[in-house]
């Protein structure tokens, strides 16, 4: 792969975002506001040197809120991807390695999960669980794992026919050992690329969930929530209240998607 500046720009941006998210309490002079304390006398101030991105309807510094929102988004997406990759690998590996009726059964179940549009499925689950960070993680994880199960199972079936797996089996390696030592490591590459792209996708869907009030609850800082509570002020001129969180979601999703594409070495 030739050197492409776009990749490094993405990595740089995502690294900066991660540092900003972890270091948010120390990076901004408005840490308390970022965490949710209102400062009503300062409400809806336009961007200025004191408040680079302006203040929201509760007078909180928008930059601080966005940094704290990055913590929410990245943590949530990380937990969702981590959980669903784990579950997806377990199901896909078991189905692909076992074959036969177990494979058939597991894949039919996966098909059923895949039939639901992920956001609608998550909405259904969270409506029963009650809104909140933990519910959103659980619901999105349950909506997301089938993609990885299908991916891993496909890789396993492809690998099982190759000579080195045949060889391992003929020297008497147990199915569990073949799955762990030969199949899994070889299936990992495409899986990690897909998981990278999906961090952005999960952030997008999760922001939708919190936009309709089913994600983290106020006063938590969350980009989707910020857009929803700020949207009524946009038409009266305070565009920054919803504009900057939208930009944060857009740039983050964009960075993960293009990074994933570059890793895949693919076109576009």
């Amino acid at each position: 792969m030739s050197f492409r500046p776009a990749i490094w720009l993405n990595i740089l941006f995502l690294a900066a975002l991660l540092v900003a998210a972890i270091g948010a309490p120390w990076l901004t002079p408005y840490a308390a506001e970022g965490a949710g304390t209102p400062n009503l006398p300062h409400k809806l101030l336009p961007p200025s040197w004191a408040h680079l991105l302006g203040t929201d309807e509760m007078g909180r510094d928008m930059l601080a809120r966005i940094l704290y929102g990055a913590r929410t988004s990245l943590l949530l997406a990380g937990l969702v991807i981590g959980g669903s990759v784990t579950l997806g690998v377990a199901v896909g590996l078991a189905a692909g390695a076992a074959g036969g009726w177990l494979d058939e059964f597991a894949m039919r179940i996966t098909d059923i999960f895949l039939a639901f549009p992920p956001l609608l499925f998550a909405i259904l689950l969270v409506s029963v669980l009650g809104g909140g960070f933990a519910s959103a993680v659980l619901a999105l994880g349950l909506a997301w794992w089938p993609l990885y199960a299908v991916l891993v199972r496909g890789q396993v079936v492809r690998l099982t026919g190759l000579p080195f797996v045949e060889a391992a089996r003929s020297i008497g390696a147990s199915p569990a050992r073949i799955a762990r030592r030969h199949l899994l490591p070889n299936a990992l590459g495409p899986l990690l690329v897909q998981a990278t792209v999906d961090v952005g996708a999960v952030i997008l869907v999760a922001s939708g969930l919190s936009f309709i009030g089913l994600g983290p609850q106020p006063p938590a800082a969350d980009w989707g929530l910020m857009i929803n509570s700020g949207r009524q002020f946009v038409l009266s001129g305070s565009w920054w209240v919803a504009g900057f969180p939208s930009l944060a979601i857009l740039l983050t999703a964009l960075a993960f998607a293009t990074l994933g594409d570059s890793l895949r070495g693919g076109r576009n």
Partner: protein
Amino acid sequence: MLRLDFLLRRLFTSLLVVAGVITLAFFVTRMLPSDPARTFAGMRARPEQVEIIRSRLGLDRPLPEQFLRYLSGLAQGDFGNSLVTKRSVSEDLGIFLPATLELILCGFGLALLIGIPAGLLAGASEQSAFDRLTGAAAVVATAAPVFALALLTQQIFFNQLQWLPLNGRLDAEISIGHPVTAISGFLLLDAALTGNWVAWRNGVAHLILPATVVAAYPLAIILRMTRNALVDALGQPHMAVARAKGLPSRTLLLRHALPNAILPVLTLAGLTFAYAITGSVFVEVLFRWPGIGKYMADAIVSKDFPPILAVTLVSTLAFVGVTFCVDLLTAALDPRVRQGR
């Protein structure tokens, strides 16, 4: 021609998925570590209020009985009653569904009508300015949250330029001065049928922004997929032969490349339909569009479970239906698939 056994096999797997979706939606909502009745009654509800909600949802009965009631209800098209308004959810769906269909069909139609020709143009002129520009725009469109796009278009076309209305399906003056007689529930169709052109023009103006926002994501995907499929098809060996024979580039493109490029696009267009459905939920909320998405969002706010379940099921089954139709269409067009090879 489609072979009957292919059709039956595909129909069978689709029905299996439908049965699975219905079953899963039931059990997954009952097996989650929570007390739904408590959630819907709200934090400050008294125990006896929770019990009323519990019995109204039938949650106080044994699980198998609940499941049978749920199935027999669905078989009769009965989604139960709203916990808040006590109205029948099926009747509500009947009222709100046409508005959503109008929005999704227009939005998705727009995505196909623009996405496929633009994708072909980009693919036929690989690496041109047009190709790069549409490529970049498509990547941005797929990373933008639908609700942010909706707010942005409202800000530009209503607030700044004042070209288009902010929300709703009709201006208040129009719906009072030139009311549309409901025949099908599709506003534009009904207005046209009754010759109410004042309302028709106003309805179109109201539809432009929401339909465009619904279209954005599917359009971006369809455009890039069409472009990639055409580039792939143009790189095939048989294209080199056709070119060597001296066929004009028009024939090359339309007769030799296009038929091979269109199949993967068709499959993917079916998949993007799911995005059009979920996107319409946000669009309906922000544009105050009286469809099932807004109906569901209102139900979420008032913690009203039956409408949420109903909209999820109806949308998912619509998605399964669209996938089924796309598969049949693909099979009808692709000799390899219809012969089961």
